[in-house]
C-alpha cells in the first residue's frame, strides 16, 4: 500500500504545499483555514517537524485560491487527520532531498546526515551547514515520491498559536484590514419599502440597490453605520417575517421524504417495549464578531473579482461566486482572512457575496461590508431543530432485542459550493438565483441529520428512519456536530432510561453493551474521575450523569460526566471528560478544543433556543438569546487517555453531543424525572415534573 496521502498523489508537486523561498525559509501553503481552532498553527508545527527546521524557518501563508492547494472546507474535525499527513509527507520529501544535496557536498553517506532545528547534523552533531544553505539548491518542481519518506510518525513542533500575539496587539482579523480608497457598507435587509426611498441621507452616504439588495455605502464607516442605525430604529422597520412558536417545532413539518432502513427485523421484536421522543430547538451560531468581507472588482486585466473572506472554504466560495456572477472560476480570487469564531455555516459566505454585489457598482474600489449583530442573528443560517424518536424491544433482562431510531430534521448542509446545496447565498435574489432544492449531507460525508444516529453499542440491527423536513421555518445549515448533537443527546438519554427500567447502574448498563476496548476505557476513566461509585441518590436535587459517544464513529472516543445542583435553576458545577484522540499533536490546542466544546455544549444544553417574542420577532440581540457567562462556568477536568503510538483523531466537534447528554442525564438523575427536551431549563424541568415531557 502506498504511504503517500491521496491528496499528494493527486497534486504531487511539493512546492504546491511547501515552497522553498529565496530567503532560505520554507513557505507553507495550507488550503485549510484558521477558524479559531488552531489548525493552521498545528499544520505549521507539523511542517517544521517534518522539514527538520525551527518554526521560525517556516512562513505561513493564509489560504487563497491563487496560491493554495484546494483542500475543500475546513470542517468535520478532519483537518489534522486529512491535511496533517500531507504536510508531514511533503516536509519529509524536502528533508530527504536536502540531505541528498548535503551528502554530495560532504561526500559522505546520506545515512550519516539528518537535520534538526534548521541545522544539518553529521553523525548526530552540528556539521556547520544550515538547512538554509541547501534550500537554494532544491528543484522547485520536485514531486513527492514514496522513497523520500522516512519512518518517523507524524508529529508537530510544540509552539504557541501563530495568530494570537497579533490579535492581542489589536489586529489580525479581516475586520481590521486596511485598504486604500476603501468604501464601507451596511446592509438594509428588511428595510421598509425596499424599492422606495430611504429618506434623506447624510453627506457622503449613498443608498445602493441591486435587485432586492439594499445597502448604504460611503467612505466614512461611522457615518454609514449611524445612518443605518437611524433607519433601523424607525418604527416601520420590519427586519424579518413574523415567526411563532408553532413554526419552529417540527410536529407539523412538511416532510420531503421518509427513508426507512432497508430491512425490518420483525422476528426479533419483543412485546416489552420502551419508547421516547427527544427534541432539540433551533440554535444560533452566536459568533462574537458579526460577519465581514471585502470585495473588489478589477476594471481591467485578470483576476476580475477579488474577495477577502472568513469563509470555511476559499475554493467552494470561489465556485459559488463564479457561478453567481457568471465568471470563470479563474477570474475570481478568494483570500482567507480570519474572522471571529466559526462553528459551522455562518454568515461569512453571505456577506462575501453581499460585498461582491455592491463592489460591482464601484469598479476598482474595495468595498467592505460589516454585518450588524441583528443581521447575523436574523439572516445567517441557524442550526436546525430536531426531533429524535427512539424505540426498543427488550428482553427480560432489559437488554434491547430490536432498536429503531427515527430522526426528523431539516438539512444540515446548505453551504455554498457544496454539490447538494448550491447556491444558497443570502443575497441570491440580487444575483437572480432561485431557491435551491433542499437536501442533506450524504452519509459518506458523515451525514447531516443522521450524523451519529447509529448508537455506538452492541445492539441488534439498528433501524434508522430519516424524516427529512424539506421546508423549515428558518434557513438551516451546519453547526458544530450537525445532527450528532441531538442524536447523541437522545441516544444517551434513552440509554439512561433503559438502565433505569432494567434497574441497572447506567455505567454498568452501557459497558454491558460494549465490546470496543477504547470506548470502554474512556467510560471507565470518566467514572473514576467523577467519583461515579459515590453517586448521590436520585431525586435529591443533586445529579451526576454520564454519556459516551464517538463522533461520526471515526473521530475521538469521548466520555463525559456532569454534575448539577438544581434549586430554582440548574447549576452546572462540574464536568469531567475522558478523551481518546490517539496521539495528541498539540496538547494545549487539544485541551482548548475540548474545553471549548464543553462550554459551548453546556450553553446549548442549559439555555439556548431561538424563540420568538410575543410579537413574533426573532432574537436580534444578545438580550434575546443569552449564552453561558463566566459566572456560570463549571469546573472542568480533562484526561487524554490515548496511546501515543495511535494515529491522531479529530477532536473539534467530539464533545458537543455527550456534554449535552451528560447534563440532561444529570438533571434527570437529580430530579428523578425523564428529561426529553433541550434546553434543560426551568420550563423543561417543570414539564418533566408534570410528566409532560
Amino acid at each position, binding site marked *: 500500500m502506498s504511504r503517500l496521502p491521496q491528496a499528494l498523489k493527486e497534486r504531487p508537486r511539493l512546492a504546491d504545499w511547501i515552497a522553498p523561498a529565496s530567503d532560505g525559509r520554507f513557505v507553507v501553503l495550507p488550503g485549510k483555514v484558521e477558524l*479559531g*481552532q*488552531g489548525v493552521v498553527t498545528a499544520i505549521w508545527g507539523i511542517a517544521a517537524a517534518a522539514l527538520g527546521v525551527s518554526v521560525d524557518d517556516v512562513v505561513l501563508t493564509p489560504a487563497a485560491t491563487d496560491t493554495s492547494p484546494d483542500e475543500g472546507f475546513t470542517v468535520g474535525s478532519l483537518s489534522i487527520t486529512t491535511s496533517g499527513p500531507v504536510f508531514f509527507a511533503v516536509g519529509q520529501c524536502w528533508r530527504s532531498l536536502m540531505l541528498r544535496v548535503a551528502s554530495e557536498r560532504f561526500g559522505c553517506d546520506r545515512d550519516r546526515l539528518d537535520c534538526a532545528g534548521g541545522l544539518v547534523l553529521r553523525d548526530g552533531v552540528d556539521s556547520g551547514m544550515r538547512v538554509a544553505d541547501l534550500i537554494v539548491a532544491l528543484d522547485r518542481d520536485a514531486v513527492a515520491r514514496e522513497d523520500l519518506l522516512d519512518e518517523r510518525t507524524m508529529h508537530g513542533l510544540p509552539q*504557541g*498559536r501563530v*495568530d*494570537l*500575539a497579533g*490579535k*492581542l*496587539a*489589536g*489586529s*489580525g*482579523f479581516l*475586520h*481590521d484590514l*486596511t485598504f486604500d480608497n476603501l468604501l464601507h457598507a451596511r446592509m438594509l435587509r428588511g428595510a421598509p419599502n425596499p424599492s422606495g426611498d430611504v429618506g434623506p441621507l447624510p453627506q457622503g452616504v449613498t443608498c445602493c440597490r441591486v435587485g432586492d439588495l439594499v445597502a448604504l455605502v460611503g467612505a466614512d*464607516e*461611522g*457615518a454609514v*453605520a*449611524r445612518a443605518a*442605525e437611524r433607519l433601523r430604529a424607525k418604527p416601520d422597520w420590519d427586519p424579518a417575517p413574523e415567526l411563532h412558536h408553532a413554526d419552529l417545532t417540527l410536529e407539523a413539518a412538511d416532510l420531503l421524504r421518509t427513508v426507512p432502513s432497508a430491512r425490518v427485523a420483525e422476528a426479533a421484536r419483543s412485546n416489552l417495549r420502551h419508547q421516547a421522543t427527544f427534541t432539540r430547538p433551533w440554535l444560533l*451560531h*452566536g*459568533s*462574537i*464578531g*458579526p460577519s465581514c468581507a471585502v470585495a473588489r472588482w478589477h476594471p481591467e486585466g485578470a483576476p476580475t473579482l477579488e474577495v477577502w473572506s472568513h469563509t470555511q472554504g476559499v475554493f467552494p466560495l470561489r465556485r459559488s461566486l463564479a457561478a453567481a456572477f457568471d465568471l470563470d472560476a479563474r477570474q475570481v480570487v478568494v483570500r482567507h482572512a*480570519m*474572522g*471571529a*469564531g*466559526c*462553528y459551522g455555516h455562518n454568515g461569512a459566505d453571505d456577506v462575501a457575496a453581499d460585498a461582491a454585489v455592491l463592489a460591482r457598482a464601484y469598479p476598482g474600489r474595495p468595498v467592505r461590508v*460589516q454585518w*450588524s*449583530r441583528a443581521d447575523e442573528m436574523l439572516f445567517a443560517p441557524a442550526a436546525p431543530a430536531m426531533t429524535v424518536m427512539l424505540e426498543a424491544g427488550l428482553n427480560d433482562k432489559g437488554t434491547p432485542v430490536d432498536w429503531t431510531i427515527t430522526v426528523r430534521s431539516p438539512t444540515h448542509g446548505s453551504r455554498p459550493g457544496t454539490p447538494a446545496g448550491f447556491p444558497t447565498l443570502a443575497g441570491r435574489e440580487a444575483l437572480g438565483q432561485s431557491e435551491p432544492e433542499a437536501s442533506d449531507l450524504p452519509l459518506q460525508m458523515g451525514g447531516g441529520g443522521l450524523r451519529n444516529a447509529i448508537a455506538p453499542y452492541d445492539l441488534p440491527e439498528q433501524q434508522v428512519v430519516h424524516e427529512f423536513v424539506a421546508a423549515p421555518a428558518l434557513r438551516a445549515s451546519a453547526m458544530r456536530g450537525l445532527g450528532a448533537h441531538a442524536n447523541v443527546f437522545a441516544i444517551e438519554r434513552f440509554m439512561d432510561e433503559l438502565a433505569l427500567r432494567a434497574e441497572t447502574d447506567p455505567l454498568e448498563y452501557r459497558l454491558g453493551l460494549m465490546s470496543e476496548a477504547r470506548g470502554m476505557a474512556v467510560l471507565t476513566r470518566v467514572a473514576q474521575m467523577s467519583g461515579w461509585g459515590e453517586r448521590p441518590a436520585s431525586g435529591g436535587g443533586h445529579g451526576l450523569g454520564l454519556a459516551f459517544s464517538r463522533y461520526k464513529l471515526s473521530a475521538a472516543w469521548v466520555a463525559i460526566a456532569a454534575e448539577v445542583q438544581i434549586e430554582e435553576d440548574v447549576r452546572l458545577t462540574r464536568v469531567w471528560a475522558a478523551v481518546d484522540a490517539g496521539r495528541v499533536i498539540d496538547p*494545549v*490546542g487539544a*485541551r*482548548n*478544543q475540548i*474545553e*471549548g*466544546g*464543553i*462550554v*459551548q455544549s453546556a*450553553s446549548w444544553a442549559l439555555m439556548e433556543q431561538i424563540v420568538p417574542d410575543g410579537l413574533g420577532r426573532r432574537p436580534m*440581540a*444578545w*438580550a434575546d438569546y443569552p*449564552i453561558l*457567562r*463566566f*459566572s456560570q*462556568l463549571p469546573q*472542568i477536568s480533562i484526561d487524554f487517555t490515548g496511546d501515543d503510538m495511535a494515529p491522531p483523531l479529530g477532536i473539534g466537534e467530539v464533545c458537543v453531543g455527550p456534554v449535552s447528554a451528560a447534563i440532561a442525564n444529570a438533571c434527570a438523575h437529580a430530579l428523578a424525572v425523564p428529561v426529553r427536551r433541550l434546553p434543560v431549563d426551568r420550563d423543561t424541568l417543570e414539564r418533566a415534573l408534570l410528566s409532560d415531557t
Partner: protein
Amino acid sequence: MNNAPQIRVLVNGTSRDLTVAAEETLLQTLRGQLHLTGAKYGCGAEACGACMVVVNGAAIPACTLRSADLDGAIVVTPEGVDVRLPAAFVAEQAGQCAYCVPGILASLHVVMARGAPPDRNAILAALEPHLCRCGAQPAILRAAFRAAEV
C-alpha cells in the same frame, strides 16, 4: 460641519485633538480616525464586551459612548494595556478565535491597575460583562490569574 465637536483626549498616553461627528461613538473614533483596531465591534448594545476600553479608569463599552462627550478623557485601549496581560494570555494560549480577548484585556487592565493586589473574585467580576463563544473562558481565567499572580 463647522460646528462639529472638537475634543482633546489622551489615548494610550498620547494627546489627540480630534474633530468628531455629533453622534460618533468612541468605537468609531478609535477604529476609524485613530486606526486603533483592538476594540472590536460585537453588538453595538453594550452586551458582549468586545469593544471594551478604559475611560477615566473604568472599563466601558465603546460602542455606545459618544466621543463628543469625552473632551479631556483619559482612554486606554487594548493596545495600551498592562504588558503583563498579553504576555500571560500568550503564555496560556488563552483565546481560540480571540475576538473577545482584546476587550477582556481592557477590563482586566482596570483590575491590575488598582492599588491592592487583585483577587480571584475581582477578576471574575471584571470578566462577567464579557461573552466568549469559543468556550475559551477556562483558559482566559488561567491567563488572568497568571497575570495577576493569584
